[in-house]
């Protein structure tokens, strides 16, 4: 079995709780240090006793007890630059198929058969609750089966 591992107990814990001032900016408040809470003492003792039972591949106790800083984050995700190529049904695709994912997902698919596309559309509607107008489904399948999937 693996070596008996030393548990880092009672390590000083530093957490930075930051307020997200605005999207795209990260603002860190001054760090605050907390001792190990009293309610954890018995648990830590139990964990220490438990440690020796871990297998050889188990994660190892970290050797140093340095505090780790975590900072709140806020960002904006980029938006899609691709659109469905022109063709009969393009408008139906735009109105039905972009709530859950961007067009690139479809444009990167291999050229599936009409039956396979019908299966995919059915799965999106029935399994993933895609807000697709049932009357539009034939036009969607036709469009998918007809588009030249451009690189």
């Amino acid at each position, binding site marked *: 079995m693996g070596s008996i591992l030393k548990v*880092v*107990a009672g*390590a000083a*814990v*530093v*957490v930075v*709780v*930051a*307020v*997200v001032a605005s*999207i795209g900016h990260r603002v860190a408040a001054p760090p605050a240090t*907390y001792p190990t*809470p009293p309610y*954890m003492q018995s*648990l830590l003792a139990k*964990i*220490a006793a*438990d440690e020796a*039972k*871990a*297998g*050889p*591949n*188990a*994660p*190892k*106790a970290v050797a140093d007890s340095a505090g*780790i800083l*975590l*900072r*709140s*984050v*806020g*960002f*904006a*995700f*980029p*938006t*899609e*630059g*691709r*659109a469905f190529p022109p063709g009969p049904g393009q408008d139906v695709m*735009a109105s039905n198929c972009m*709530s*859950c*994912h*961007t067009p*690139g*997902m479809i*444009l*990167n*698919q*291999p050229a*599936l058969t009409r039956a*396979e596309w019908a299966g*995919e559309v059915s799965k999106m509607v029935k399994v*993933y*609750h895609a807000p697709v107008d049932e009357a539009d489904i034939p036009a969607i399948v036709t469009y998918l089966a007809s588009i030249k*999937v451009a*690189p």
Partner: protein
Amino acid sequence: MHDGMALGRRGLIGGAAALGGILAAAGARADTVTLGLNGGPEQRSLTSAFPQKGSMILQRTRPPLLETPFEVFDQGVFTPNDRFFVRWHWAVIPEQVDLATFRCTVRGHVNQPQSLTMTDILALPRVELAAVNQCSGNSRGLFAPRIAGGQWQNGAMGNAKWVGVRLRDVLDRAGVKPGAVAVRFNGLDEPVVAGAPDFMKSLAIDHARDREVMLAYQMNGEQLPLLNGFPMRLIVPGWYSTYWVKMVSDIEVLDAPDDSFWMKSAYLIPATPHADVKPGQTGFPTEPINRMVPRSFFTNVTAATKVKPGATVPLRGIAMGGDCGVAAVDVSIDGGATWQPAVLGRDEGAYSFRQWTAQLTAPTSGTLVALVRCTNTKQVAQPMEANWNGGGFMRNMVERVALQVG
């Protein structure tokens, strides 16, 4: 309204600048990559528009699917955080996470339900593990016949040094009641459409308490990028990434098997050797995808690499054992009739990538076709033949590269 229109809510200037790669025309430009997917489309944009991410292969903008360009794997066994692959199921992903309000609940079949801050988590004993995180559908784009889904080449994987706490210790804070059978994990992401199945995964109780499964808040020495699951994600060593729930905010101990969608109906594989069936085959038993299998790759050569006649060709790559360590990596230049051992690099742990090196001698003309095969410590070797299943899961055949001599 929809962000499929070329310019979305970021507006003209920021959007156009950030999305230069996306808007680029296809062609042999530096901001596109060709993935070698049989039947295409195989061109993808490279994008650096995502927060905390460097240049990534854009598989899907929303919800993000970002693949690691394969040359990154030649730079070392640990994948830099800003190049680590990204995969989300649902498009409602928080763009900000405030640690002042973030809580992770531990509830269900427990004695004392918990609502934990990251301060609480950081106070638990800290452990570290190197482990490969690989998408179940990594390499799906290489399946033949092709399958709908994320059209990954081989870069939906990465290796990191994870620091965090044992899941067992978190569960013990709540006190698991006798009779518990599974633990289910949910993150901050949500479906776009009401009633759609929220993304949740579960582990059997013994697995969840096995002293290996972790909740990680650090990755390669830094906090996790938001898109890789900040403030913490589940680490399930040796298992596919679908279980590595990101932004974990709810841990529910169950007293009955988890019959929710993502365990019962999705991510199922044929319960057959190599999860392999014939296209169109039906009637086989299925099971939830689980342990990873061995893989190995060339990282310093591609089909575009030219070698001199008779030259000594240094080869380099990475290997993974899957659910255990790497025992051996072997290379072959005669189609697998004979193999010669590669030299293994430093052992970073059973679940880590391991670098390998080998030297081959080029023939005097034609091509040098090299194969690489990993055998893990359970004596499971990569198969020569590709597997196939309807999910495009668990590809792990022996990799092959043909180098041009001349």
